[in-house]
């Protein structure tokens, strides 16, 4: 099968984090571009949620399993551990309650993949420092009054939150504004300065499911985190 060129550069990076034959939920899946890429290149079974009506309609018309809905309201319908990966690409900063979303991602999926623009990048810091106005960049192109991005955070902030929530960072990829790729975990000093965009593969710390056995079935619930 011929590889489809990635429309967005983080799609191909996300792809590298995903094993073959897995079940995936793409939150904010658009018209199914990433789903298509993962079906073709990773033989994935994909599901998607999309808030925008026209994009959701296009994705459905292209044959993908897509639910037209709002991730902040509709994630609760999915059962625990029903996906191998849950992907949230470039959307966490637009969520009303990013922390709740993050814990939902890891409830539904065994692993979560989260990508976001780093507000700690030097260009952004410089803009705010020098002009004294809210920064506008290529990855954050909106003015303050009409931006969908309502929660700005830096890589440092994100790492602190993960720590607080007992989330393990399995892999982390950073991209500079020139598109140069590096491992965030290996170079934490300065990383918050140079990372333009970050992609994290997350899971829960020492996750041990409680198994409840009935006569026929084994039910698993991931409500306990053992340290």
């Amino acid at each position: 099968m011929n590889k489809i060129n990635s429309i967005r550069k983080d799609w191909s990076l996300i792809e590298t984090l995903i094993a073959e034959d897995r079940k995936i939920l793409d939150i904010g899946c658009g018209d199914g571009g990433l789903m298509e890429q993962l079906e073709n290149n990773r033989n994935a079974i994909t599901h998607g949620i999309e808030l925008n009506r026209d994009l959701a309609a296009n994705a459905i018309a292209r044959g993908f399993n897509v639910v037209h809905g709002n991730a902040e309201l509709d994630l609760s319908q999915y059962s625990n551990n029903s996906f191998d990966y849950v992907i949230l690409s470039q959307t966490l900063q637009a969520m009303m309650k990013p922390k709740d979303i993050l814990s939902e991602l890891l409830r539904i999926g065994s692993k979560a993949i989260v990508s976001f623009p780093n507000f700690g990048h030097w260009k952004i810091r410089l803009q705010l420092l020098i002009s004294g106005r809210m920064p506008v960049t290529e990855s954050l192109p909106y003015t303050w009054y009409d931006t969908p991005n309502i929660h700005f955070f830096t890589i440092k902030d994100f790492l602190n939150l993960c720590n607080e929530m007992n989330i393990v960072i399995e892999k982390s990829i950073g991209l500079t504004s020139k598109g140069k790729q590096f491992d965030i975990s290996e170079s934490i000093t300065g990383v918050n300065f140079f990372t333009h965009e970050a992609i994290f593969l997350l899971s829960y710390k020492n996750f041990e499911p409680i198994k409840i056995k009935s006569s026929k079935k084994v039910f698993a619930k991931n409500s306990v985190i053992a340290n």
Partner: protein
Amino acid sequence: MKTKFTTDTKLESEIAYFQNINLKLESGDIIDSFKLAFKTYGKLNADKTNAILVCHALTGDQYVAGNNPITGREGWWSRMVGPNKPIDTNKFFVICSNVLGGCAGSTGPKELQNGSDVAYGGNFPSVTIKDMVKAQSLLIENLNIEKLFSVIGGSMGAMQALQWAIDFPDKILNIIHIAGALKHSAQNIAFHEVGRQAIMSDPIWKNGKYFENNEVPERGLSVARMIAHITYLSENAMHRKFGRKLQSRDIISFGFDADFQVESYLRYQGKSFVERFDANSYLYLTRAMDYFDHDETFRKNIEFSHNPNNHLKYLIVSFTSDWLFPTIESKMIVNQLNSLSREVSFLEIDTDKGHDSFLLEEPQLDNVIKGFLTNNFAKIDE
């Protein structure tokens, strides 16, 4: 059991006779023999993988496309079904049958009771959506189709599609469920009850025996249709179409004539309905919808069914202005399917045309139906 196929030239319809089949209904009653009137469009392919069953709504019939000889007009979904249409009959073999209890050639209250020359009337047993689907499954079986590619329906047709997913998941690959619900709501039952009361309080109805004098409870049936028709529209659509415009006059009459266009329109809807629909059928079919309830049972039925149903794909569609089967009802189905990790797609289409939107010009509906069918068919065809 014997099945016989004939063609009714007057009805321009195929008829399947199921003789001595003793169809057991949900009520416990048994119909020993029955017939279903049906139409097919397109050609069944050699592997028999391209069959689609379209289920009609409350007042629909088997004439989904082409000419309807009863009304003299085009079939009820001819904008959706046909060559190069979203449900493309160049590609798919489309079957549509008049439901059990209907009045377009299938066994129903207006047909003669088995072995007698008297019509059933009020003696017809109560039928449910489950019974309709059971009868359809016998038709499909006797057409020698092992597996339907898709079952598609809006409103009461959506109820049938959902019932197919529950009762015969092993005989279908996907369903397209439009403007439906897991249950008929209290408000919907209430509207149906008003319609039935209108029919039953017409002195000509005579406990359902109006046919003995060759009469029709026209007043009652047309009022029932007028009420129902209001529920199929939306306030915005009505306002856009009629506003407060007057009908064939410049000033109000200070009387009870149809001063307003909307009144005239409803009267016309009622009058033309009487010419094509049987009052007893209307009672039975509205009742079948009222009895439809999978609110508590759907999830369990899907999760614990002895019939494998993991392979089923669902396309669920609702409309923003549909207050008869609002989006929240569709979302309940989607939620339950997602909680079971089933392959489900859902779209709420933005329109002001109300419940009837599924029969009207809605490009987004055309696109998702066409795309869903084409892409999923390509997958089985590989």
